[in-house]
């Protein structure tokens, strides 16, 4: 948490609150926010408790002076949560558990046989490719989830689910998998698993709802004279008609080429004019001719 070893309990609390707000996965958009938030929570878990802190301080000889507490970040998307928040999952990294022992949940594990209740619903975030939303796909999804073992202790178990990613899914939407949550108690039905879908960053497209936005490089004569050029879409190449007199920054819409659905999204293409390199005698001659023939001042409206 970036604290000195002699930090007071108040300093620790303040540092933790600051970090928690900064890196809370709902608040921060940094790609490793979840890992950092988890790290800060683990560190705080240790340092807020004087006994645990003493145990940590005894590790001193093994640590270099000034070294901070760095639990191994083994966190990523694909972690299943039940109910609570990001800290409520009851699971800490192995390093943490080795240091302070596993939490014992044994006391809660004795329910009477007559008690019936539906199982808990689980939630997990999943990253898929944009293309999956266009064509639908079947993806193997690795999930870690905390489970009680037969000794009543929390353990992280890994399991893989094969899940159909339906065509037309949008960023942030949830897929509900019936009966994939916790087992019910007694006669209770199994809980559900909710997968929140997010797209991997795409090299060409930016996604906004069902619409896609992209930049398309074009040659100066293509915008000046108009042209029909090839442009990529997740569904394959299409011909795009550029009207004569378009320019860098002109926006064209490919209707109905976005993420399928009701209504199907559009693709917005922003043209970006690229000047051809003057790397040959001929190219240089053409540029010189343009310079002498065209009375063109691109800075005219700046008054210079």
């Amino acid at each position, binding site marked *: 948490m970036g604290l000195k070893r002699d930090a007071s309990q108040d300093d620790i609390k303040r540092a933790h609150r600051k970090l928690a707000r900064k890196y809370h996965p709902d608040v921060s958009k940094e790609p490793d926010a979840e890992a950092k938030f988890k790290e800060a929570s683990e560190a705080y878990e240790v340092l807020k408790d004087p006994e645990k802190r003493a145990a940590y301080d005894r590790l001193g000889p093994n640590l270099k002076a000034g070294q901070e507490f760095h639990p191994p970040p083994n966190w990523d998307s694909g972690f299943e949560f039940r109910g609570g928040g990001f800290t409520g999952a009851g699971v800490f990294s192995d390093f943490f558990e080795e240091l302070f022992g596993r939490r014992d949940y044994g006391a809660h594990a004795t329910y009477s046989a007559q008690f019936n209740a539906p199982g808990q619903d689980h939630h997990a975030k999943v990253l898929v490719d944009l293309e999956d939303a266009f064509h639908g796909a079947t993806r193997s999804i690795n999930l870690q989830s905390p489970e009680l073992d037969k000794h009543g202790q929390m353990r992280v178990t890994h399991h893989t689910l*094969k899940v159909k990613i*339906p065509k037309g899914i949008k960023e942030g939407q949830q897929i509900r998998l019936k009966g994939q949550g916790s087992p019910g108690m007694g006669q209770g039905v199994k809980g559900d698993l909710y997968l929140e879908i997010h797209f991997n960053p795409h090299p060409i497209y930016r996604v906004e709802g069902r619409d896609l936005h992209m930049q398309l490089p074009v040659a100066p004569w293509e915008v000046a004279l108009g042209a029909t050029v090839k442009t990529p879409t997740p569904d394959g190449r299409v011909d795009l008609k550029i009207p004569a007199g378009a320019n860098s920054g002109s926006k064209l819409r490919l209707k109905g080429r976005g993420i399928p659905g009701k209504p199907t999204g559009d693709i917005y293409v922003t043209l970006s004019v690229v000047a051809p390199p003057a790397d040959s005698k001929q190219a240089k001659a053409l540029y010189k001719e343009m310079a002498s023939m065209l009375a063109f001042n691109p800075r005219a409206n700046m008054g210079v």
Partner: protein
Amino acid sequence: MSKQAVLTGIIVEETTVFTLGELSRACGKPAEWILALVEEGVIEPVGGDQSHWQFRGHCLRRVRIVQRLESDLGLNLAGAALALELLEEVEALRNRIAVLEQ
């Protein structure tokens, strides 16, 4: 290697609706807590009196975010509701910037 069954789920869409009980089970919180969220204006039920309340699919995401803000950052309901609104605004702005900066 054994062939694993492919699971097919349903998309929780605007057209998907939850009852009060389903929504409360989906986030593992008591129905009273959901009622407090309705009072605060975080989510809006449709369909007349409480016993017939239905919540649209997008409510689940909002409810989950408020839930995490409460339990992870110690916000109270009003604070979490405000944070949620600001977060949604920030997200919309970030999206606009990303498109403009492309």
